[in-house]
């Protein structure tokens, strides 16, 4: 690691360094935590620009999430809450925070960890090990439910069958149901997921770019799904990704950082990079976007799909059979690759986006282009759709 030859000649060499250890402390001598005015700050809060120390950060981070939970009435005493746990940073911090707050403020919740094993070798099997360690640490029951048990297909097998196009759509549709079914198996009546403010801001941008108005309406809700489906909430709705990562780092939480090997979603990648560029210019931008989206008002004529039950599995859906069953039927008959490109996805997009000038970024002329951009946050979507549909149908 002494690969310093390109610096060698550039600077005049001086005498030996004298005060190496004291320098870092003297540099920040003037700055103190803006909250306690005692400790050295370790973090500049993106939301407010405040410089705060580690202890104050823990305090304010936890308090804000507690406030979000209380002011939105996310839980009732006695609720059995399944934490959607992927082993990644968000869900790991969520598990930590939920256990901490449940104890500290005596929510009276029964907590469970719920992981979905999609069957992706080298990705999910590793991250599940992380979740298992979390289970040990927090002493909460863990349920792992696999695609294989539920659908008799692993994602590896599905990808082998249909290729890498649209596999995220499959996976999203399956996972959405799997979380619900897993929660039911655990006897849970609520689900929490680790979607954070950055995720939501990103989804808002994505839905604007796709012209997907129904999802644009839904993605901003903190609680989604009701009437038949389990309510699903996002306690991190107003929490910055940066602070979640900081929290995990300072608390030395054990999380898994590999990107899904099948998930190179270029379009969401564009939106994510864009958002990060914006955030670099003005850190409050994440919350500003959420503020904007909460204040969007939609024309009344936008119809929501009517809710019903799947003829095959009974899951809530907007067609005769649900998307998962439809996909499965095609997979089992070996027609998935063809069907995905023609009917199913088209229907799927239509059901989400009832206006027929379907506002994807795709020219209408090429049918194979019908795609479901960025379904990699599907958990929050269909449930909302159902919630919306039930409320609008009763009105009309």
């Amino acid at each position: 690691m002494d690969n310093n030859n390109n610096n060698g000649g550039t600077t005049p060499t001086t005498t030996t360094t004298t005060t190496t250890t004291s320098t870092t402390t003297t540099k920040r001598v003037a700055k103190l935590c803006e909250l306690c005015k005692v400790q050295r700050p370790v973090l500049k809060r993106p939301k407010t620009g405040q410089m705060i120390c580690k202890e104050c950060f823990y305090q304010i981070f936890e308090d804000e999430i507690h406030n979000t939970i209380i002011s939105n009435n996310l839980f009732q005493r006695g609720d059995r809450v399944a934490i959607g746990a992927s082993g990644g940073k968000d869900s790991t911090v969520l598990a930590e925070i939920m256990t901490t707050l449940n104890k500290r403020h005596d929510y009276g919740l029964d907590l469970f960890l719920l992981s979905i094993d999609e069957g992706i070798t080298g990705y999910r099997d590793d991250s599940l090990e992380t979740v298992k360690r979390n289970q040990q640490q927090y002493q909460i029951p863990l349920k792992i439910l696999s695609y294989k048990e539920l659908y008799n297909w692993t994602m590896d097998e599905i990808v082998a069958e249909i290729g890498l196009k649209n596999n995220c759509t499959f996976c999203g549709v399956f996972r959405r149901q799997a979380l619900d079914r897993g929660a039911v198996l655990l006897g849970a009546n609520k689900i929490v997921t680790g979607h954070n403010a950055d995720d939501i801001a990103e989804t808002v941008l994505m839905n604007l770019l796709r012209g997907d108005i129904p999802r644009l309406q839904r993605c901003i809700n903190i609680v989604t799904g009701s009437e038949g489906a389990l309510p699903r909430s996002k306690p991190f709705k107003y929490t910055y990704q940066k602070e979640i990562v900081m929290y995990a780092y300072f608390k030395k939480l054990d999380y898994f950082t590999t990107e899904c090997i099948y998930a190179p979603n270029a379009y969401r990648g564009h939106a994510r990079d864009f958002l990060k560029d914006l955030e670099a210019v003005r850190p409050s931008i994440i919350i500003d976007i959420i503020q904007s989206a909460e204040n969007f008002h939609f024309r009344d004529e936008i119809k929501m799909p009517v809710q019903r039950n799947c003829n095959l599995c009974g899951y809530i859906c907007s067609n005769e059979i649900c998307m998962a069953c439809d996909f499965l039927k095609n997979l089992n008959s070996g027609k998935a690759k063809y069907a995905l490109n023609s009917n199913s996805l088209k229907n799927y997009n239509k059901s989400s986006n009832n206006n027929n000038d379907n506002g994807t970024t795709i020219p209408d002329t090429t049918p194979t282009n019908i795609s479901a951009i960025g379904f990699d946050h599907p958990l929050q979507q269909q449930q909302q759709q159902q919630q919306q549909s039930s409320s609008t149908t009763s009105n009309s």
Partner: protein
Amino acid sequence: MKVKIEMTGGLEILFKNQKNHTYEFKDRDTMPLRELVVWMRDTQIQERPELFVEDSTVRPGILVLINDADWELDGGIEYIVEDGDTLSFISTLHGG
């Protein structure tokens, strides 16, 4: 000068899959952080350097800690790295 570098959150993949690195610059006492990251990009990364450095600063979405504190407290990319500093680079972009 000697600096310790820590890569986490998925960034370590770019750096020979190693989390911890120590770099020593024998004839330097200090070095602008900007120079250091560009040097790291040019000499330490085998592929996809754009995932680490963009427009001669650390790519947005990568969190930087200088001696365990937010780099924004120290002027961000304008910081002058000194002997004994520990720099942590944490990707916030990977996984959920």
